[in-house]
């Protein structure tokens, strides 16, 4: 078990190195350059050259890559090009907000999605099922920034129940978390419905029912436990989706998280800051996948034995 975890974490190292390489190369290939953007229209040639040298941007790509990785190995994420602040500090400022938002959205997606999915599966083709299907279609199709603005208009402007944006209290969290969760709620409820329906058609469920086991027990003990494996995989994938969606949600709701930090870094061509942010995302993906894999073992003893 421990060796499995260690092996997986070690495998993450080449992944992260690759991520660093790709991000750095992309920024390098993008037209536009950090220094001219920072100094603006009016900068003299000498000023641009001086700042470029100061930031080490005059060195060739390979040298900068080796330099960056070398510092990374020593745990130094560098200083952001634009603000000249340690990237570690910038990330520490931003990632709790993104984590809070993503976890809240994931909880909403899991709770609402699973309950709605089970109800739809137990009474398939009922009125509730039809409504849930329609709502899912809506949740999946609407772009986040649109739903976000509509929610703001309804709950902030008309009803005046919730703040327009910003962070700080639970009431600030509600709208962004719900907005971010909507597409995932739809996915999870659809997946739960089909997984539970599949399992309910299995022989062992029929056997259990034949033995006279109560319907609640059949559902809880036999059906759900087996249906949970695909749902869990989906939730793992969704948490990645949610982090990606956070970029938009954070912008609409003025949420001070990593997504906005990343957007800012891209527009400023600040590759040092961007890399820091991307690394955090990449690391989060690795950890989430690992957790999902580990949880299979808990749900399905066969996985553990083979592993």
């Amino acid at each position, binding site marked *: 078990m421990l060796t499995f975890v260690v092996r997986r974490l070690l495998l993450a190292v080449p992944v992260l190195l690759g991520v660093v390489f790709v991000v750095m190369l992309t920024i390098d290939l*993008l*037209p*536009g*350059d950090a220094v*001219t*953007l*920072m*100094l*603006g*229209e*009016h*900068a*003299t*040639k000498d*000023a*641009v050259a*001086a*700042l470029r*040298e*100061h930031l080490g941007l005059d060195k060739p790509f390979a040298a900068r890559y080796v330099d960056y990785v070398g510092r990374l190995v020593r745990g130094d994420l560098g200083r952001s090009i*634009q*603000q*000249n*602040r340690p990237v570690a500090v*910038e990330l520490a*400022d*931003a990632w709790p907000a993104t984590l809070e938002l993503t976890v809240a959205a994931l909880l909403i997606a899991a709770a609402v999605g699973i309950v709605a999915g089970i109800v739809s599966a137990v009474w398939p083709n009922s009125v509730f099922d039809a409504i849930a299907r329609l709502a899912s279609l809506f949740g999946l199709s609407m772009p986040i*920034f649109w739903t*976000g*603005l509509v929610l*703001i*208009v309804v709950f*902030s*402007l008309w009803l*005046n129940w919730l*703040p*327009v*944006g*910003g*962070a700080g209290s639970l009431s600030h969290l509600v709208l962004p978390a719900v907005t971010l969760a909507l597409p995932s709620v739809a996915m999870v409820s659809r997946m739960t419905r089909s997984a539970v329906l599949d399992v309910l058609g299995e022989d062992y469920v029929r056997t259990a029912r034949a033995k006279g086991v109560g319907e609640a027990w059949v559902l809880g003990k036999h059906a759900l436990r087996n249906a949970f494996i695909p749902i869990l995989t989906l939730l793992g994938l969704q948490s990645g989706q949610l982090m990606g969606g956070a970029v938009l949600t954070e*912008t*609409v*709701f*003025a949420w*001070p*998280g990593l997504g*906005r*930090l990343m957007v*800012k870094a891209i*527009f400023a*061509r600040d590759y040092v800051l961007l890399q820091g942010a991307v690394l955090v995302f990449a690391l989060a993906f690795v950890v989430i996948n690992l957790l999902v894999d580990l949880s299979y073992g808990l749900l399905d003893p066969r996985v553990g034995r083979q592993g």
Partner: protein
Amino acid sequence: MRSSSSRLLLGLLVLGLVAAIVPWADAQKRGGTLTIVRPTDPVSLDPNLETTAPGAWVYFNMLEGLLTLDDKMQVKPALATSYEVMSPTRVRFKLRPGVRFHDGTPFNAAAVKFTFDRALRGTPPARWASLAGSLDGAEVVDDLTVDVVTKEPYGPILRTLAMYCMGMVSPTAVQKMGADFSRAPVGTGPFKFVEWKTNTHVIIERNPDYWGDKALVDRVIFKVVPEEGARMIALQTGDADMVLFPSPAQLPALRKDPKFTVHETTGIRVVFAGLHAGMPPLDDVRVRQALLHAVDRKAILDNIMEGSAGPARGVLAPGVFGYKDMQLDRLYPFDRAKAKALLAQAGWTPGPDGMLHKGGQRLSLSWVAARGRYPKDGEITEAIQAMFKDVGIEARVQVLEWAAVFQQLRGNPLNHHMFTVGWVTSNADADYSLYALFHSKQVPPTGWNTSRYANARVDALVEQARRSLNQTEREKLYGEVQDIIAKEMVWIPIYTTKEIIATRGTVKGFQIHPVEYNLALWKTWLDR
């Protein structure tokens, strides 16, 4: 005796009546928190590291320079009380006595020297060093007298020192705080720094020990709200008192609603379609003039800008020192027949496809533009493209992200006939634009003569005006420069920006400034 006292009584009565009728302008209320929403967080609160609006809006209220520009664009004393030109490269300033920085450090000549040394001799130099022309530093004469020195005679020195980013910093605070200073600056201004939470808010508070008229509100919170729609909703719900960069589409409704006030004034940025005069066929002045005749600038202002911008009357904005109305509407009225006639003179005649041809070549211009860098830049580019087509000119527009456009414009050679750009005369002195944009030696990457305009007379005039410290003479020289440029246009000026800020009706006393960065909040008060 009796009559005099009754006269006094009468006088008092009249005064009382007047007081009852005229609402006193100074019935100001003190206190409260002013909440401002704007799209982005500052890069830094230190002018050494940021000269763009997100930081400037905040630090302009905390840091003061020797001079300042009032809302009529006149130079006014701030931390200096008077000046005297000692020589073409030396101006002597008397400093305001008894002023202290927010940390208690006295403000004096040494602080001025420190501020300039830090900015101009630092590695790398301050971001504003490029804006400051020939400024070389300061020399202490005595505690309250300082000489500002330039490398060569530099006429724009006063307006340079009055720029928003020339604020004096506390030497003791800089030495003590090091790199942290840029996130918590210490100046002499009417507000002091309280807190900056990245991507959330910056808070500043009233400086109770300010040397001049003290601020009226207790605190100002600058919140970041990136989404335009969300900013406007925040204004409506009362979450915000003031919106910077309000949504243009909502302004007509806000103007009508007494619950809100829309503050607007003509800005100092001119947005234009630039012409590459070094690239055939635009090297022919008749072709360039034809392009101006082909564009219906009024239609663009009325239908695309919808009141959110003013007409461009030349290459400079009206608030800039040295500005002269170029009479573009008289020189280049919208006239397709005139445009076609000029093009025919230059040898361009309609071909079978309806487009203009010469020697088997189509009149086809390549044009690089961004979308969203300046208000409606993309729409304007498309509109002009269509207007060109009406006279038989093809424009091949390439819309790129601003950073990419910028890189092409900074490069040499430039492989496009046209480009859509806006230019701010940052120090509000004509030198800044007429020298960097029209002197033949200022071709990128040295300067910003992207049009590759070359006229020996203009070169001589802008050089002479730069070296003169006689402001009347300078104004005359710049007038002549603009007269020459008007005849040989290398731009199609489209509009002069308007500075627009929306507030709730409860926000009183706020005065909007033509320079976007000069967001002065100390006279603002809240009526609630």
